[in-house]
């Protein structure tokens, strides 16, 4: 549906020093897919989005939408914004204060160059879409009297009224409070699926990205670090950056004696002893391995307890609980191993384990991921 190829754009500040930007971004988004650009601020995700929208002019690369180039530096094509057929929701919503709810949503139809819509058509379409986003009863309300959540819905309705091929969402939930954000997250996903519109979503919030995306591109310093489904990104990070950015993680350094093939298990010698690890990518023998284990993948049992006996002998490590944090639905333990490494463990509450208890931990090999350290 949309293809981005080797997109580059560098910012230069007023005094001439090179600033941030994007340095060669490539990805494809399939029809109807919700694709997320995820990364810390300044990673280039918004620049990528604005380049697709036509709000920024990249330096080189190619963007094609539905088989047609809308930007191509090689053939010097840059289709103007109003011909791109893209809808966008801005971070600030950009709801025009001098128009009411209806006028805001109707604007794309009024200014349309491809077709002249009759008043009746505009009215029907706009009312339909406002009802869909739950603003049916606010049609004549001045837009300055809307709450944050309502402005957000209106911005979405406005982006959808002319039924664009592609919908761009620039941190659409970041201006809402936490509770509303979760609610709107579900609703956004529902509307996107109902409408079936191909969507590119920009956010810096990893839990938001995991919850709503079909696929995620994690970005860092102007480059894509990894593309994959939420599960792949979470469970099989291919770099330390991704592992750290997507949730809490344990990182253990080690050596790999023999070459490992992609997808296979191999033994890594670490400071905690030998560990059986999964290799998402082929790695040659190296002394530079990072082993990543998510806190909730770790199985924990009290030494001498009944559960300890059932624990697999592979990847088994002994330690002492230094601290426990009760978080409601889960409990988090800080476990110090014999050589002093701290391992974070998350588990449902209910285990009879407390501070200063001696414990055994098991890292299941399929969830113990080994990467080349950067």
């Amino acid at each position, binding site marked *: 549906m949309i293809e981005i190829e080797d997109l580059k754009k560098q910012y230069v500040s007023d005094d001439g020093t090179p600033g941030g930007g994007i340095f060669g971004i490539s990805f494809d988004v399939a029809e109807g897919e919700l694709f997320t650009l995820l990364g810390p601020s300044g990673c280039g995700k918004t620049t990528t989005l604005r380049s697709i929208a036509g709000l920024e002019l990249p330096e080189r690369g190619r963007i094609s939408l539905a088989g047609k180039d809308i930007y191509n530096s090689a053939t010097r094509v840059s289709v103007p914004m109003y011909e791109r057929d893209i809808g966008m929701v*801005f971070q600030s919503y950009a709801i025009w204060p*001098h128009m009411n709810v209806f006028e805001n949503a109707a604007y794309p139809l009024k*200014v349309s160059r491809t077709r002249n819509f009759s008043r009746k058509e505009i009215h029907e379409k706009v009312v339909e879409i406002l009802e869909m986003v739950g603003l049916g009863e606010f049609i004549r309300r001045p837009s300055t009297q809307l709450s944050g959540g309502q402005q957000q819905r209106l911005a979405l309705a406005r982006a959808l009224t002319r039924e664009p091929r592609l919908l761009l969402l620039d941190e659409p939930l970041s201006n809402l409070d936490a509770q509303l954000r979760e609610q709107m997250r579900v609703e956004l996903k529902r509307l996107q699926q109902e409408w079936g519109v191909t969507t590119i979503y920009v956010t810096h919030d990893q839990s938001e990205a995991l919850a709503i995306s079909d696929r995620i591109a994690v970005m860092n310093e102007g480059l894509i670090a990894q593309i994959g489904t939420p599960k792949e990104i979470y469970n099989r990070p291919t770099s330390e950056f991704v592992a750290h950015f997507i949730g809490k993680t344990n990182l253990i350094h080690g050596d790999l004696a023999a070459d490992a093939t992609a997808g296979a298990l191999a033994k890594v010698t670490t400071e905690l002893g030998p560990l059986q690890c999964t290799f998402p990518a082929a790695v040659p023998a190296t002394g530079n391995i990072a082993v990543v284990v998510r806190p909730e993948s770790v199985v924990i049992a009290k030494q001498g307890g009944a559960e300890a006996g059932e624990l697999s002998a592979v990847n088994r490590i002994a330690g002492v609980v230094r601290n426990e944090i009760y978080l409601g639905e889960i409990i988090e333990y800080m476990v110090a191993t014999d050589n002093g490494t701290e391992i974070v463990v998350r588990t449902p509450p209910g285990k009879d384990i407390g501070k200063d208890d001696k414990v055994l931990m098991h890292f299941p090999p399929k969830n113990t991921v080994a990467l080349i350290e950067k």
Partner: protein
Amino acid sequence: MTTKPEAIDSLWMPKETAGFWRRARSGFGYSPAVIILAGVLLILIVPPIIFLFQTSFYTTTFAGEFDKFTFGFYTELVTNPRFFNNFVNTTVYAVGSAAFAIALGTAQAWIVERTNTPFRQYMFLVAIISLGIPHVLYTIAWLLIMGKAGPVNDILRAITGAEEAVLNVYSMWGMILIEGVGFAPLAFLLLSSVFRSTDASFEEASMMSGAGISQTFRHITARLAMPGIMALMLLIFIRAFESFEVPALVGLAGGINVLTTDIYESIHMEMPPNYGQSGAFSVVLLLWVVVLLYWYNRLSRHAERFQTITGKGYRPRQMDLGKWRYLTAGLLVLLFLLIIGLPVSIVLWASLQPYYEGVTAGSLGRFTLDNYVEVFKAGSFRDSILNTLILGTATATAVVPFTALCAWLAVRRYKGGWFLDQMATMPLIFPAIVMGVAFLQVFLNMPFALYGTLLSVVIASVVREMPYGMRYSYAGLLQIHTELEEASAVSGAGEVGTFLRIVIPLVAPAMITCWLFLFLIAVRAVSMPILLVGPNSQIVAVTLFDLWENGQVTELAAMGMAWMALMTVVSCLFYIIVRRYRLSLH
């Protein structure tokens, strides 16, 4: 928090007083600071108002004392058809110059704030340097350029072959043109902040809805900026309504009278001075300005509503104009020529001539520096420059700390703080010439000799500039979050300690620019000092005015050049500090 012995205020004042400060704040009474400041404000502001109204209702003796009560001055106003004629003149002139200034300012502000035109960043410097050019000098420069013997008419005569001057600048359109260009820098500075504070994503959202640049400009940019532009247009209309330089230098010579020149003439052209008449004129002008300012307040509040809706993701955006940017750059160069280039060139030319006969080939061989020697020689010229420096320094130095304290008490909602705010802002309703009339009466009726002294000019000037200092400080202090002060209080500092150690350092850059700004506007004023100065308290702007009336163009030009050079240093300093600390210009 009260027991910490190092806290500055516990050394500075006894415990009970410290308690009193806190109690005052919590609403049991007025803080002594509020009472003292309110007293000073009342002493400064109430007498001129009383004397102004009294003057308009009493005949005066030859010595200037009030004589008999009368409504005569008002009935004469109402029955004299000239008054209505002049009122219409004033309105036409003010509307015309406001519209012209806004047109120039809008174009300039849009080009500078929203496009990628080359040189755009220098326009702020141009606008600020133009603040240092006295309005009198600027008006005179345009009269030299467009006057009967000026280069514009020379060229037109050469083209058309006419014997007489083709353009008569001493006319309504001449007044509008000169005043309009004169107000363009102010319009630009104010409008650029309107354009800057409008979230660019409003325009981007329109582009993403499928609208082109022109549709976006019509439906979004223009509509959003309109309330702000209207409010500023009204503000400049008010300023033009009260302006004096152009009406006095251009209008009077062309037989076009406006209200401010009527006031001036009834004091300066009649013998004995018709104080009562000037008072009645002043009261009418004052009331009219009050009405206009009320409208302005309502309009600008409406304008602000449009600007407060911006969200977090705000980022300024510049439109890429492509090849058109050379055209817009050309426009900026043209504006530079109109605002600084041409006026300064003609004054420089005149200052190097032994006698002035326009821009002719013959005068090329007569360059001389004699005029500059005359200006720097000990004597009235040099005295007047010194007097003006004293006036500017004294005014700014008195106003800045005074209004900063008032503003702080008002911003932090001390009991009675709103009163200080209102009182210090009130002189804004006085057109400068009306304030001149009012203070003239105050000083004439003082038991001790104050009239004609430099001190009297300084006092009037302090009252006149107070509103600007107040607005400037108020805006600066509003930006300091209360928590910064509360953190200081929690750390053990008292009220005074917090003010000295936290508030003052934080607002210092704003206060310094405020000082420079007040200095610049205090020294360029003519219309108020022209009624107050005496032979020993001449100031530059008034001297320039008198020299023009006497036809001493070359000395005037040399003095003007010297003064502009001095003021350019001050305005560049202002510019540098504003840039350095990223302060907003208004």
